[in-house]
Structure formats: C-alpha cells, structure tokens
C-alpha cells in the first residue's frame, strides 16, 4: 500500500480490475494547456483555418505534457481514464485533461503514458500483451466553401453531388486523422485504438467547422499478442424490451 494517501477518480469496478492485473491507483492528476487564437482568424476565407488548428493541437499537447509531469511527480507509470475537455473561444483555446495516475507491473522505461482508456480497457489490453504509448490527437479547422456553386446547383433543380463541398469536408477529416496518426508514429506506437471522432460547426462562427480525432496509441509488449479464447454466455433472463415508437421527423 502506498504511504501517501491515494486519491482517485476510478470507479470500484475499475479499481478492482486493475488490482487483478497488478496495477494500483496513485493520484488524481490534471493538466492544462491554453493558447491564443489571433484576431481575424474566424473571418470567412478559404481553406484550412491554420491558426485554430495550431492552437487546439498545441493546447492539447501542452495539457498532456503537464499531465505527464504530474504523473512523473507521484511516481506513476501512466494515467488512465483521461477525460479530455476542449473549449474553443473566439480568442483562445483551453484544453484540460483529468485522470488517475497508476503504478504497477514491470518498471517501464520512458515517459509516462497518457490514455483515455478506462480501467477495464487498460486491464484487457494488458492481458492481451499490449501497452499504451500515449494519447494520439489530431485536429483540423476549415472554412465552409462559399455558396456560389451551391446556389447554382439549387437553381438547376438537379440532385447531384456538390464536389467542392465534398472535397473540402473530406480533406479536413482526413487531415485531422492523419495528424492523429503522426502523433502515434512520433511515440513509436504500432496502432491507435478506440478512436473517437468529433466534428461540428464552431459555436460562434457558423461558417467554420472543426474536426477532432483522438485515441490511445498502443504497441505490443515484448511477449507479443496473447490470445484469450473468450467463452460465450447465453443469458436466460428475458431481455428488457423498451418500446420506442418510430416518429417521423
């Protein structure tokens, strides 16, 4: 047992599952990163909003760096269950990461890992012989293309693909994912699991859209992949059926 009192935001299930694979929580840790978005950034233009993309990525990277430092400070090997909160304001971006630093297992070399995996997911991966390397994050902000082409098409009354819009959205999504991949490669990971994709217009600038993609980068441990041969369970209790009338929007 640690001498220092333990603070943790893990649920009981998570704590028990981690305990069963030899890992224990140490401390609730947080990291913050704040960057500026220059004036004029949100004025409608063409293509990628590079200043916003830079600020969001820098804010998350800064928060992850500080989180790693906190984890190192308490002697943890890494942080799990990280909750990622990103607030984009007109002139600044604020990223906050909160999770629980854990310790256990063989003494790892290198930086502490930051991962948004739950305790259960971490334990499962651990048993399968994989280890997390860090949070992989990518972002891309773009201006919506000007309406010219759209208006012309509407007037023609045809149902066709709007190619310039497609290209703009497609590119932006792919960029965000590609940047997430670069993050993973930089940490010498083999892959990224449980990727989450968030996208939507910027609250105060409707002609700007942001694409975010993040997940936990992983690599196989020295033993390689461990097959677990899961059993199969057939529950005999009646599944609860909830009736939801399909409604026409």
């Amino acid at each position, binding site marked *: *047992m640690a001498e220092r009192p*333990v603070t943790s*935001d893990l649920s009981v299930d998570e704590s028990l599952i981690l305990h069963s694979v030899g890992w224990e929580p140490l401390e*609730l840790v947080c990291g*913050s990163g*704040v960057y500026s978005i220059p004036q004029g950034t949100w004025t409608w233009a063409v293509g990628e909003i590079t200043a916003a993309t830079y600020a969001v990525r820098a804010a998350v990277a800064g*928060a992850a760096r500080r989180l790693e430092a906190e984890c190192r400070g308490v002697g943890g090997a890494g942080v799990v269950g990280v909750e990622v909160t990103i607030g984009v304001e007109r002139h600044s971006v604020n990223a906050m990461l909160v999770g629980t630093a854990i310790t256990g297992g063989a003494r790892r070399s290198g930086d502490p890992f930051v991962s948004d995996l739950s305790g259960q997911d971490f334990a499962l991966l651990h048993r399968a012989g994989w280890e997390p390397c860090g949070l992989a994050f990518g972002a891309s902000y773009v201006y919506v293309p000007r309406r010219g082409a759209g208006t012309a098409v509407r007037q023609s009354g045809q149902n066709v693909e709007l190619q310039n819009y497609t290209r703009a959205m497609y590119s932006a999504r792919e960029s965000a994912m590609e940047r997430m991949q670069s993050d993973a490669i930089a940490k010498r990971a083999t892959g990224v699991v449980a990727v989450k994709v968030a996208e939507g217009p910027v609250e105060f600038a409707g002609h700007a859209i942001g694409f975010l993609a993040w997940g936990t980068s992983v690599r196989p441990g020295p033993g390689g992949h461990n097959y677990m041969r*899961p059993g199969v*369970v057939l529950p005999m209790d009646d599944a609860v059926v909830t009736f939801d009338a399909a409604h026409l929007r």
Partner: protein
Amino acid sequence: MPPESAGRLESGTFSSGLTIPDFAACLHMGMRPVALVQGYCVMSWGWFGTGGLYARYQGSGLSTYRCPHGYYAMGPDHRTWGQNTEQTWATQAWATGFNTAYHRMVEEAAEAGAHGVIGVVDTSRHLLEGGIREFHMYGTAVVVEGRQPPAQIWTCYLAGERLAKLMEAGFFPVSVSASMASVLVQAVCATEMLLHGSWDTYGMVNTTDEITQVADAEMQACRMARDRVRSTLGGDRLHGASIEAGWKEVGAGLMQRDCVLRGSRVRHVSDPGPIEPPRPVVVLRG
C-alpha cells in the same frame, strides 16, 4: 438546527432520497433508511478586508510574470508585471460554508438515531450577483441493522450498488470530503494580449506562444484543492473524486479560477484477497 426539522425527524415514518434500485440495494446491505437529512448555510461572499486597494492581492503569491518588453515604449495601460495569487479568503469562506452545512446535516442524522448518511448531494450556488453563496447538502440517513451506533456518523456520496461494491472490495466510508481553491490572476501584458488574440509588433509576444499564466492558474487551483483534501485523509483513500472548475472575470485584467475537488473518504478495513482476473466472455444478448 431549525425547530421545524425536529418534529419531522422524530416521527416514525421515514423519507428517503434514494432511487428505487438504490433503496433496494440499501436494504439488501442490511441498512435501513430512517430519514432524509439536510444541512444548509448561507455565507456572505466577497473581500471584506482592510488595507487599501492592493491588500486583496496580498494573499499567498503563487507565481509572478515579467513583461518581456523592457525599455520599449508601450501604452499607459501596459501591465509590466503579473501575478497569480491564492484568494485565501475565498478558500476559507468555502470551507466554512461547506463544513457548516455538513455538520448541520450530521446533527439531523444524529437526532434521527442514524449510523451514517448515504447518497449525499452537495450543491453550492451564488445568489444576488455573487454577493451571497449558499451551501446545501442532503442525504439519506441509515441505520445498520444489528449494530451499535458508531462513535462518529459516517457519510458517503455513494449509495446502492456502487456502495455495496465498495464495501465488498474491503473499504468502508468515513466521510464526504471536498475543498475549493481560488486563484486570482492579475494578467501581465503578454497574457492580456494573447487572450485578446493580439500580439506586439516587436516580436516578443507571438500568437503561437503558450498563455502560460492562465494554464499555470488552472494547475495551481487543481493542485491546491487536491492537496488540501489529501491533507485531511490521514491514512485513508479518496474514492470517486471529481473536479468542478471554472473561470470568472472579476475586473479589467483580473480573472479568477475556482476549482472544487469532491470525493468520498474511505478506509481500508479488510482485504478481499487476491482477485483472479475475470474470464472474458461474449454475451449473446440481442
């Protein structure tokens, strides 16, 4: 304790704030709900100290920031110096409000003959444009069947299945624990500029720079709240911690970061023994 509550607590009928599943789980654990108990406290909220305009900023200084502009001519509003300070008055006022509400709730529980209070909910909000802050705490007082009342009434944010699992895992609740830390940020020129999305023409403040002062304030508030809670734990553990934090403008170039950390203080009372990692299964549920 207000006289009205005494009558309610002495009657034989119980009321409980637990949901139905939590209520059933509670009985299953051998606990009987006896009353819904609450505590309430209203604090005046503001800086009432003496000592002139700058006394407010004399709380514990946490970090200072120098302007990078040196001898360059900057405007009259230019702030050559910035500082992050802990607003100890706010931290102490919050602690008083929280603890007073807590003790009143526990008093009601004692009056009802309870052993502990589960499913605690604590809220705090501003009234009258921030001049007043109210603290409200309530929970379900329970009696553990077949046991003597403990020396001190224990309390816990958890209830139901989550509490049962916690006890199965060998922990017993001691009390709810919370602390607030408030950091006042007096922005230095670079911080001010960057927060407005501007930069200087001398190349000393670039929009790609980190707004360190603000990030530092967030870290400081979170660390202080956590450290304060941790210092009250003794050898116990803080379980199910959560953070509630936010920013507030309090004046020109002045911002405040508040961070509240809450959790259940629990004690390790028995060892569940080595736990086998669970067998993975695929459930054939439609």
